C-alpha cells in the first residue's frame, strides 16, 4: 500500500470570486507496483491530482498518506517524499539546464545527498536505460533533438530511483515512433524495477496497451476506476464526457450488433486480432 487519498479536495483562489474546484472529494488507493493510467480532459483535474502525490500542491481539504504516514503532518519531510515520488512533467526537456546531459542527470541524485560516486553510477544507469547513445552523454542538452532531450530529461528523474514514477503526458508532441519508444521504455523500467508507475494521458489508445488500471477523471472527481476492459465497457459514458474508448472497442461492439459472435472485451489491436480469429475458428 503506497498511497491513500482520503476525501482530497483542491480549490484554487479559495474564498475569492475566482474560486475554482480542481479536485472534489477524491478517494483513492494506489498499491505498490501498480501501473496506472490517469485519463481525463484538459481541466479534469488529472495534473492537479498527481502534483498532490509528491507534495507540490497541498490539498485544501482531506488527507494523503504515503506508506502509512500523513504527508501533511508537520514533522513529515516533503523533500524526502519528493525523492521517493519522481515526477516527469509535460515537456520535461524544458527543465534541462546543466552544461552536459550527464551533469543534468546527476542533479537529482546530488540533491538527494548521495556521494559523487553513487551519483555517477546512477546517472550512467539511468542514461543507459533510456537508450540515449553514449556519444551524447557529455554533449550540451541543448544540442540534442527533441526526442533525445525528452529521454535525457526522463533519465534525470529515473536516476533518483523513485519508488513511484509519475509521468504527465510524456509523449506530447512526439511522432508515432517516438511515442511508442518512450512508452515502451516506461513499460520496461516498470517491468525491471517493479516500481509504481502513474501515466497521465489523454490518449485512451496509448494507455490501454500498457497499464493494468485506468482512473478516469472528470470535473475534479474520479468517474471510473478499474482494469482497462472494465473501464472501456462504459464506452458510452466516456463518450458523453468527450473521451472516446479505443477504436477496437467500438469495432467489437459494432460487430456484436451486426450479429457476430465475438467478445466485446478487447482494448488493443492484438487482443482484437485474437478475438476475431477465434470467432472465425482460425485459432
Amino acid at each position, binding site marked *: 500500500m503506497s498511497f491513500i487519498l482520503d476525501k482530497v479536495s483542491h480549490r484554487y483562489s479559495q474564498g475569492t470570486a475566482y474560486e475554482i474546484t480542481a479536485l472534489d472529494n477524491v478517494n483513492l488507493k494506489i498499491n505498490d507496483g501498480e501501473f496506472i493510467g490517469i485519463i481525463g*480532459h484538459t481541466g479534469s483535474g488529472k495534473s492537479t491530482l498527481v502534483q498532490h502525490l509528491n507534495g507540490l500542491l497541498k490539498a485544501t481539504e482531506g488527507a494523503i498518506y504515503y506508506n502509512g504516514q500523513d504527508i501533511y503532518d508537520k514533522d513529515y519531510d516533503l523533500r524526502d517524499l519528493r525523492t521517493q515520488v519522481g515526477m516527469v512533467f509535460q515537456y520535461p526537456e524544458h527543465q534541462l539546464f546543466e552544461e552536459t546531459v550527464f551533469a543534468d542527470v546527476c542533479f537529482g541524485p546530488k540533491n538527494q545527498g548521495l556521494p559523487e560516486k553513487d551519483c555517477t553510477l546512477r546517472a550512467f544507469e539511468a542514461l543507459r536505460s533510456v537508450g540515449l547513445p553514449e556519444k551524447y552523454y557529455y554533449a550540451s542538452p541543448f544540442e540534442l533533438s527533441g526526442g533525445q532531450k525528452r529521454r535525457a530529461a526522463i533519465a534525470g528523474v529515473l536516476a533518483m530511483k523513485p519508488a513511484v514514477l509519475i509521468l504527465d503526458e510524456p509523449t*506530447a508532441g*512526439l511522432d*508515432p515512433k517516438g511515442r511508442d519508444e518512450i512508452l515502451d521504455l516506461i513499460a520496461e523500467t516498470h517491468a525491471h524495477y517493479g516500481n509504481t508507475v502513474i501515466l497521465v494521458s489523454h490518449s485512451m489508445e496509448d494507455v490501454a496497451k500498457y497499464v493494468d488500471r485506468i482512473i478516469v477523471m472528470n470535473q475534479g472527481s474520479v468517474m471510473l476506476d478499474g482494469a482497462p476492459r472494465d473501464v472501456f465497457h462504459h464506452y458510452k459514458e466516456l463518450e458523453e464526457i468527450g473521451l472516446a474508448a479505443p477504436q477496437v472497442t467500438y469495432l467489437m461492439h459494432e460487430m456484436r450488433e451486426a450479429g457476430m459472435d465475438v467478445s466485446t472485451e478487447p482494448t488493443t489491436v492484438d487482443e482484437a486480432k485474437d478475438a*476475431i480469429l477465434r470467432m472465425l475458428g482460425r485459432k
Partner: protein
Amino acid sequence: MGIVEAKNLVHEYITRDEEGNVEGIQVALDHLDLSVKPGQFIAVLGHNGSGKSTFAKHINALLTPTEGTLIVDGLDVSDENHVYDIRQRAGMVFQNPDNQIIASVVQEDVGFGPENLGVPTEQIWERVEQSLKSVGMWKYREHSPNKLSGGQKQRVAIAGVMAMEPKCIILDEPTAMLDPDGRKEVLHAVHKLNKEKGVTIILITHYMEEVVDADYVYVMDQGKVVMEGNPRGIFSQVDALQEHRLDVPQITALAHELKNSGLPIPDGILTRQELIEALAKIK
C-alpha cells in the same frame, strides 16, 4: 499550373565554426518534387526531423532554396521582390499556439496582418469579423488569448492568416501541442475553410487520423518525398509507413494484422464499417 510547385528543391543548413569554415552540412530537403492544385487539401506526413517543417517555411518565403525552384501562385520564392506577395498569398500557421499570437486581445491579433499590409481601417474590421466568424471565434473577439484553450488559440491564429485573404494556408503541425478536443476543433475549422472558401490547405502533421480526409498525401523522410497518393493508397502500405517512423489508425492496423494472419481482407481499410463488411463476407 499548381498553386505550389516544387522542382528539385534542395535546402542545406550549413554550420560554421568561429573562423567561418564550414563545419558541417545538413541536408534538410533533398531534391523534393511536389505539386499542389488550387483548392486541394494536401497532407504532408513525416516524423520529427524529416524535413517537413523546412519545406513549410519555404512556401512562406521564410527560407529560400539552396538549389531548385519553388513557385507559389506563379511567383518564385527566390525572388526577393515577391517575398511579401508570397507571404500574403500563402499564409502560415505554426505549431506553438502561444508563440504566434502577438496582441493581448483576440480581434487585435487578427487585425495584425491586415495592418501590416496597409489595409484601410474600415476594411480591417470587416476582414477581422469575417475571419473570426469563419473559424467560429467571433464571440471571443474581446477576450485575452491567455484565457483561451489551445484549440481556440490555434483557431485565432488561423483567423489571423485568413484576414490577409490568402489563397493557400500552410499549417505546420498545428495540433501537435493540443489535446484531442483541440485537435478536432482545429481540423474541423480547416476543412470548413477548404470547402466553403476554397482555400488551398497544406497540412503538415504526424497524426495519421488527420490525413484520412485529405485529397492527396505526401510522405516525407530524409528531405525527400518517399510515398504519395490518396489516403487509402497510403494507408494500405502499413509496413512502409512504419519504416518511416509513422503508424496507421488502429482499425487499419488491425485489418493489416488480420490479413497477415491469412484472412482475405482488402488493403487500405479506413473505417470500422469497412472492416465489419469485409469480415462479414468471410463467413
